[in-house]
C-alpha cells in the first residue's frame, strides 16, 4: 500500500487554490469551446433527424406526442421543440379551391384564406431529456368532426433548426383510425425521410399480400440509415396500433421487392412461419407502440448497400390473432464523422486541449516548485528526511504525488470537455480514441513534470523558476519557430514542397520535445476515428513516413524516465541544507 504521505502530497497539490482555479479556468474554456463547436455546427448544412409519434383521442381529447432528436450519426441529441397542432375543415378547403378555380378569388386571396382555415387547437414548447420529448396532455379544444389535423414542428438542436410554416400541407398530417365508435388521429414517421404504411390485423393465421380480409389497425412508419465504415445500421420505427403488445421486427432479404412483383413468382406473400423465414431476416428486438430505434448490423443487407434504396420491413405479432405491417423503408447512408471531425478539430485546437497543453505546464512547473524546489532552497526537506524514510522514498513520494496531480487534473479536464461535447452534440469518441487523447495529453505533461523534476534537483528556489520557465518557453512556445528555421535551412528557402518539408521536420522534432508527445497521439486519434489526419492531400503520407508507434513509445518513455533517473542521481547525494 502506498504510504499516506503520497496521498497527502497529492491532496495538497491538487487542492491548491492556484491548481483548482487553473483547472476551473481551463474546464470553463473547454466547455466554451464545446459551445463554439456547437454553434459552428449549427451553421453547417447538416441533416436533421428525428422520429415522431403522436395520437389524438377525439373522444377524450387526450393528446400524446413523442419525439426523439438525433444527430447526424443517429445518436440522441438534446434540443428544443415547439409544436402547434392545427386542424382544418375539409369542406372549407374544398370550397376555397372551387372558388379559386371559378375565379371568385385570386391566388393571393386563396393563400391568405387557406391559412385562416387552420384552427390551432394546441401548442407548446418542450426541451428534450436524453434526446427524447414526451408530452401527454388534454388539449383545450375539441377537434370537430370532418376536420383533419396536422402537427407543425419547430426543432432546434446543435445541428441546426427546422421550422414548418403554418400552412396547409406543410405539417405532418394525422390519419384517422376508427376504433369502435371513436376516432383516434395517429401520426407516425421520421424525418428527413420515412415511409408510412397501414398496420393490419386479422384473425386468420394466413394472410396474403396484398391484404385481403383484414382491417386497418394502426399505422407504422420506418426508415433505415446505415454507416458504411462502422457497419452499423439503424431502423427508425414509429408505430401505433390498437394492439398494445410487442411486435417482432424483420428485415426483408435482398431482392424481396422483385420477388413480390415479378410475374410467375409467388405474387402473394404468406405470413406463415416458413415463408417469413424465406423472405425475411429477423432482427432480435421487439418493439411496442411509440418510437423505437433498432440497431443492427449492415451484414443483414447482404452486400446490397447503396444498390437497393428501399428495404421491406415486417412488423409482426401473433399474440392475439395476427397483426402486421410491411413497410417499404427508404434507406440512406449517413455522413459519418464529418460533424464529429469538425468538433474534434475544435476540441484539439488551441482553444481546447491545445490551450490546456499550452498553459497547464506552468502549473506543472509551479507544483515542483512547491514540492521540491522551494522546500529544498529553504532546507525544509531535511526535517522530512529525518523521518523513517529513505532519500529515495522522499524523492519518489513527491514525484508520484505530482504525477497523480497531473493525471487527475488532466482527467478532470478531459472528462469535463468530453462530457460537454457529448451533451451538446451527442458526439463521443471511441474508447481507443479516448485513451489515445488522454494518454497523449497526460504523457506530455508527465514528461514535462519529469524534466522540471530534474531541474529542481540541479537547482533550487529562484534558479529553478528561471530554468523551468526557460524550458517551458523553449518547448511550448519557440519550438515551432525552431522547426521553421530548420526547414528553411534544409530546403534553402520557400520551395514548392516547403509545407510538406515543414510538417516532416515538425514531426521529427516532436520526438525531442516532451510537450509534443500529444501531437503524435492526436495524429493517431484522427486516423483511428476518421481514417485520415489532414484534409490536405499528401500530408498524411508525409507524417506516416516519420511517425512510428515504436519511436513514439520510445520517445515518451525516454522523456519520462531519463530525467527522473538523472534527477535521482543528483538528489541522492545532494545537501538538502539551506
Amino acid at each position, binding site marked *: 500500500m502506498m*504510504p*499516506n*504521505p503520497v496521498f*497527502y*502530497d497529492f491532496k*495538497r497539490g491538487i487542492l491548491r487554490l492556484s491548481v483548482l482555479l487553473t483547472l476551473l479556468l481551463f474546464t470553463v474554456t473547454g466547455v466554451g469551446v464545446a459551445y463554439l463547436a456547437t454553434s459552428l455546427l449549427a451553421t453547417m448544412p447538416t441533416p436533421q433527424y428525428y422520429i415522431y409519434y403522436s395520437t389524438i383521442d377525439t373522444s377524450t381529447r387526450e393528446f400524446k406526442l413523442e419525439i426523439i432528436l438525433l444527430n447526424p450519426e443517429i445518436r440522441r441529441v438534446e434540443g428544443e421543440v415547439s409544436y402547434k397542432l392545427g386542424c382544418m375543415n375539409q369542406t372549407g378547403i374544398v370550397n376555397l379551391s372551387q372558388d379559386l378555380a371559378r375565379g371568385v378569388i385570386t391566388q393571393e386571396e386563396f393563400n391568405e384564406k387557406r391559412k385562416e382555415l387552420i384552427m390551432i387547437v394546441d401548442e407548446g414548447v418542450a426541451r428534450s431529456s436524453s434526446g427524447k420529448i414526451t408530452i401527454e396532455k388534454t388539449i383545450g379544444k375539441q377537434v370537430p368532426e370532418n376536420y383533419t389535423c396536422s402537427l407543425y414542428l419547430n426543432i432546434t438542436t446543435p445541428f441546426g433548426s427546422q421550422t414548418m410554416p403554418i400552412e396547409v400541407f406543410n405539417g405532418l398530417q394525422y390519419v384517422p383510425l376508427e376504433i369502435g365508435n371513436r376516432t383516434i388521429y395517429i401520426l407516425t414517421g421520421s424525418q428527413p425521410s420515412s415511409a408510412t404504411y397501414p398496420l393490419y390485423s386479422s384473425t386468420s393465421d394466413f394472410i396474403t399480400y396484398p391484404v385481403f380480409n383484414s382491417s386497418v389497425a394502426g399505422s407504422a412508419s420506418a426508415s433505415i440509415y446505415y454507416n458504411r465504415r462502422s457497419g452499423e445500421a439503424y431502423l427508425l420505427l414509429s408505430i401505433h396500433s390498437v394492439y398494445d403488445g410487442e411486435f417482432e421486427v424483420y428485415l426483408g432479404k435482398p431482392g424481396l421487392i422483385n420477388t413480390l412483383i415479378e410475374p410467375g413468382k409467388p405474387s402473394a406473400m404468406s405470413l406463415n412461419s416458413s415463408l417469413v423465414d424465406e423472405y425475411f431476416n429477423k432482427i432480435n428486438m421487439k418493439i411496442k407502440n411509440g418510437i423505437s430505434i433498432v440497431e443492427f448490423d449492415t451484414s443483414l443487407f447482404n452486400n446490397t448497400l447503396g444498390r437497393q434504396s428501399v428495404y421491406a420491413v415486417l412488423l409482426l405479432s401473433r399474440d392475439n390473432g395476427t397483426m402486421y405491417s410491411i413497410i417499404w423503408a427508404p434507406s440512406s447512408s449517413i455522413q459519418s464523422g464529418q460533424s464529429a471531425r469538425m468538433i474534434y478539430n475544435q476540441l484539439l485546437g488551441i482553444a481546447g486541449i491545445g490551450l490546456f497543453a499550452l498553459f497547464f505546464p506552468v502549473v506543472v512547473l509551479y507544483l515542483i516548485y*512547491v514540492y521540491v524546489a*522551494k*522546500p529544498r532552497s*529553504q*532546507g*525544509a526537506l*531535511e*526535517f*522530512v*528526511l*529525518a*523521518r*523513517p*524514510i*529513505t*532519500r529515495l522514498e522522499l524523492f519518489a513520494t513527491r514525484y508520484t504525488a505530482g504525477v497523480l496531480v497531473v493525471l487527475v487534473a488532466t482527467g478532470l479536464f478531459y472528462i469535463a470537455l468530453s462530457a460537454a461535447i457529448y451533451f451538446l452534440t451527442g458526439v463521443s469518441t471511441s474508447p481507443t480514441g479516448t485513451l489515445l487523447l488522454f494518454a497523449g495529453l497526460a504523457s506530455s505533461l508527465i514528461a514535462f513534470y519529469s524534466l522540471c523534476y530534474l531541474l529542481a534537483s540541479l537547482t533550487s528556489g529562484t534558479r529553478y523558476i528561471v530554468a523551468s520557465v526557460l524550458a517551458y518557453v523553449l518547448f511550448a512556445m519557440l519550438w515551432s519557430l525552431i522547426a521553421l528555421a530548420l526547414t528553411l535551412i534544409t530546403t534553402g528557402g520557400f520551395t514548392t514542397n516547403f509545407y510538406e518539408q515543414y510538417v516532416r521536420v515538425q514531426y521529427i522534432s516532436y520526438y525531442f520535445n516532451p510537450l509534443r508527445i500529444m501531437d503524435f497521439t492526436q495524429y493517431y486519434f484522427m486516423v483511428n476515428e476518421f481514417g485520415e489526419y489532414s484534409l490536405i492531400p499528401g500530408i498524411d503520407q508525409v507524417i506516416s513516413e516519420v511517425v512510428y508507434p515504436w519511436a513514439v513509445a520510445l520517445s515518451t518513455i525516454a522523456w519520462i524516465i531519463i530525467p527522473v533517473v538523472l534527477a535521482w542521481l543528483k538528489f541522492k*547525494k545532494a*545537501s*538538502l*541544507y*539551506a
Partner: protein
Amino acid sequence: MTIQIDHVSKSFGKIQALRDVSFTVRNGVLVGYVGLNGAGKTTTIRIATGVLPPDSGDVLIDGYSVVKEKKKASWRIGWVPELPIFESDFKALDYFVYLAGYYGYSTTEAKRLGEELLEKLGLGNALNQKLATFSQGMKKRFALAVSLINDPPNFILDEVLNGLDPQGIVFFRDLALEFRRKGKAVLFSSHILSEVEGIADEVVFIHKGRVIGVYSMEEVKSKAKPALEITVNKAEGEVLKVLEKYGEPSIVNERKIVLRNPRTDPSTIVAELVNKGISVLEFKKEEKNLEDFFFELIKKAESDV
C-alpha cells in the same frame, strides 16, 4: 540505546567539515557536544540523523546504520534542530499529520496524537496556525512534538537553548534531564560549555571537525580554573603589572580584566590595587571557569596540529 558515531568524515568541496569523528552516547547518559560555531557539531548531527550522507564512516543508532538501514535508524532517533525549518505553507497540525504518515499513522490517529502532543508542548493554541508564523521557540517545540511521535529511545538536541527565552531554556534543560531519567541516550550540542554544565554526564569537545577531547563532567569541572573579574577605571599596563604577581591577567575590554588562577586571597589583590591608586569599581569571583578549560583545549589542539 546508543548513538555511536564511528569514524565519520565529511567534506563540502574543499572544506573538510569532519575528520574521523568518533564517540558514543550510551543509554541513560546525556552527552554534551561542545564546539565553537562552525566546529562541525551540526554536520555531525545531520549525519547522525540520516539527512546528510557521510563521505566515510557511519553512525549506528542502536546498532542500525544510518547509511545502510536508514529507516530503522531514523525510527530510533528524535531530533530537535537548532533552527528547525518546515514547509512554511502548512498549518501546524496538518504538517504534523503529514509527517506522522511516515510513521504509519492514519490521518485520524495522527490528528488525535498531534492535538495531544502539541497541547502538551504548549502549542495547543497554534494548531491551525501556519508554521511560517511560529517563533524560534515554537518551532523547536513543534520539532520536538514531531520527534516524539514514536517516542524514540535516542535523542539529539542541537543548540536547542539558542534564541530561547528563560522559560524555554528551563523547559528544554528539564526535558533533556527527563529523557536521561527515562534511559534514553541524549546528545546535547552547544557552543557554550556552561550550558551543558548542569545537565551533561560527559562532554565531547569538537574543534575544526576533530574531536579534541572526551571528558566526564566531573573531569571538566575539576580541570576548570577559578577566576576574578575586576572592573577598574582604565585597564592599562600598571594594573596588569600588579595583577601578574597574583595570577594570569587578561584584558576583556578597556575597563575589565579577568585574573585566572589567582594565587592569593582576592581581598589582598584588591588592597594592593587600591594602594597603587587604582580605583576598583567592581569585583567578582568566579569559582571555576569552564570556558577557559574549553579554550585551553582548543589552544592545545591547534598547537598539536
